[in-house]
């Protein structure tokens, strides 16, 4: 039984601890609200001699990820952190990192994107990057932040896909909670050194990321090599297969640290629930309180707290939702012109299954709008009412706001 090392940490410091314990070697980050304390903590650790890493005070987020890319190709373990506009600024590089199959770990402190300016929480920033080929994991609390950053390196370096660990700005980043901080010696046992698939050695020269044609091309030895499409296929294949690694790493983490993460999502009372609330990040905690309220009202409510958004756990979801007749999806994001991203993914996952549940989408919490458990419970009740009235499906999501 491991001795607990409880520290009172806010989310940002938890993320910094995760990076420190993972013995990251190159850190490149640009400050942005509400992420700045992560970079400040890390520079403090480096300057104080508590973390043996190169800290590069880059001049933009795009450069931050470019530094991590090259350092990772050299063979160093790299880390960056950002939010909102910073993540948007590095969009091009997100594609580049995934396409080069580099195990960079990025922490995204979820914050709304302008216009207009808003520095508070929602998940539009990381959701907007869901197509870039990164594994995306969301934390519900600060314990999950430090644990997920450490696991992120093990996952990334096993499958050669970059990992984004996301957590809600202010709600988690600036809120202190008790966190059991893993011991360095245990993390060292858990996390082997990074073995790059890239070589930068003059005695063995290789050139990375040249223009790649649409069609396969033969190399100098006569071997048929990939076209662009085949390389991209391999990335998708890696993400599909990474589910297995994510579960395995989560299980190994549990065995060593006592907290298992062998799951793509958190299940609360799903065994007998026919009403399921789906929420991601800290909202999943509010959702459990809402489920309590609904249970008191006599409903069999449960919560599916989504943890891994990419790769999206379609088959696992079908199994978990098999008893549901109403699924209420709360999104702190929206794909404009359509609906909340999580809702679309859920509908896609259930297509072709025998599950005949009604699915309702509510947009909540944008720009840091407070979301109360009572509001979530009321949204569920509203959905039940509309079901009774025979409304099977709504084309666009409903919003919990003042319009």
């Amino acid at each position: 039984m491991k001795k607990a090392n409880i520290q009172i940490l806010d989310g940002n410091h938890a993320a910094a601890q995760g990076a420190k314990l993972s013995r990251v070697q190159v850190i490149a980050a640009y400050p942005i609200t509400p992420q700045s304390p992560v970079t400040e903590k890390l520079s403090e650790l480096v300057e104080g001699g508590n973390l043996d890493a190169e800290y590069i005070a880059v001049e933009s987020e795009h450069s931050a990820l470019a530094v991590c890319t090259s350092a990772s190709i050299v063979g160093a373990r790299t880390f960056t952190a950002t939010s909102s506009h910073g993540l948007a600024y590095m969009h091009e590089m997100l594609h580049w990192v995934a396409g080069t199959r580099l195990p960079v770990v990025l922490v995204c402190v979820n914050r709304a994107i302008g216009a207009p300016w808003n520095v508070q929480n929602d998940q539009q920033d990381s959701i907007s990057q869901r197509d870039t080929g990164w594994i995306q994991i969301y934390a519900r609390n600060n314990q999950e932040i430090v644990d997920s950053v450490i696991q992120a390196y093990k996952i990334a370096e096993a499958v050669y896909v970059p990992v984004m660990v996301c957590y809600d700005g202010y709600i988690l980043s600036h809120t202190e909670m008790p966190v059991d901080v893993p011991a360095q010696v245990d993390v060292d046992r858990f996390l082997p050194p990074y073995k790059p698939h890239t070589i930068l050695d003059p005695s063995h020269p290789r050139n990375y990321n040249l223009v790649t044609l649409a069609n396969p091309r033969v190399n100098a030895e006569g071997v048929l090599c990939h076209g662009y499409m085949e390389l991209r296929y391999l990335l998708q294949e890696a993400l599909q297969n990474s589910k297995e690694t994510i579960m395995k790493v989560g299980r190994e983490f549990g065995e060593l640290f006592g907290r298992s993460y062998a799951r793509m999502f958190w299940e609360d009372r799903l065994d007998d629930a026919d009403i399921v609330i789906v929420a991601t990040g800290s909202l999943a905690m509010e959702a459990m309180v809402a489920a309590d309220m609904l249970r008191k009202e006599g409903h069999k409510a449960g919560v599916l707290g989504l943890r891994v958004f990419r790769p999206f756990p379609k088959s696992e979801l079908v199994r978990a939702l098999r008893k549901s007749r109403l699924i209420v999806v709360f999104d702190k994001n929206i794909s404009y012109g359509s609906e909340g991203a999580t809702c679309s993914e859920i509908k896609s996952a259930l297509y072709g299954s025998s599950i005949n549940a009604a699915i309702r989408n509510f947009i909540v919490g944008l720009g840091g709008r407070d979301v109360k458990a009572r509001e979530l419970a009321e949204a569920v009740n509203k959905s039940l009412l509309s079901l009774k009235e025979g409304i099977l499906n709504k084309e666009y999501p409903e919003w919990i706001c003042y319009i």
Partner: protein
Amino acid sequence: MLPGNRLCPGCALSLAYRHILKALEGQVIVTVPASCLTVLHGMYPVTSVNVPCVNTPFASTGASASGLVAGLKALGKKGLTVLAIAGDGGTHDIGIQALSGAAERQTDFIYICYDNEGYMNTGNQRSGSTPLGAISGTTPILGKQQNQKDITAIMEAHHIPYVATASACHPLDLYEKVKKAKAIKGTRFIYVFTPCPPGWRFPFSDTIKIGELAVQTAWSVLYEIENGVFRLTSASESLARKGNLRPVREFIAVQERFKNITEKQISELQDWVNARWQLCLKRATNS
């Protein structure tokens, strides 16, 4: 650099790169953004260079180099030079932020900007280095209405230990400067003048002649600034001694990209060249 690559016949960049890599004796990691150099480097899975190389998106050359330096340092790997090499597009325009940041952080690398005065890889669109009056894809009729920015002066303002200008058409001078830069620590910036036959519209056999004419008219000035000490080198140094400066008109006349240039613009260019040359002479005397 291996023969049989995709660069145009008579390409000055090709010549420059040959000598740059020789001066660095192959103990180098190169990082390159979108540019004509990417074309030289070839297409997956075959490359025309015998050195390790990392291609990086257009805006990020300086940052990519910073990453290589940081990674090598973190892993304790010594003895390798990190070389960032980008065109004027990737240096003056889209890449200036990353370059400036890398220089400000005193990143230990060599940055070479090869200047063909336009976005030549994509068919000659105007860049921050395209001169006044030059026709380009995006200044097709009137020619560029503004003169080029002075990237070497900008880099000098970063107070880095070595700033130099060179030319592909004066390869021995270029070779010496790269060799000198190799031995210096900190951010080293070398600007290399690389005439472009299809972009500037002159016959590809004339590349060296154009480059030499550029120096003789002081359109291109060869100098180096080592820890703040300025000196002219090679053909610019002899030009200063002999004083036989040729008019800029002679340089302009042999390139069809200037076919629509006005007399007023030629006069403006001559004034600009004169002022810069006088300043160089003054600095050379004072050093």
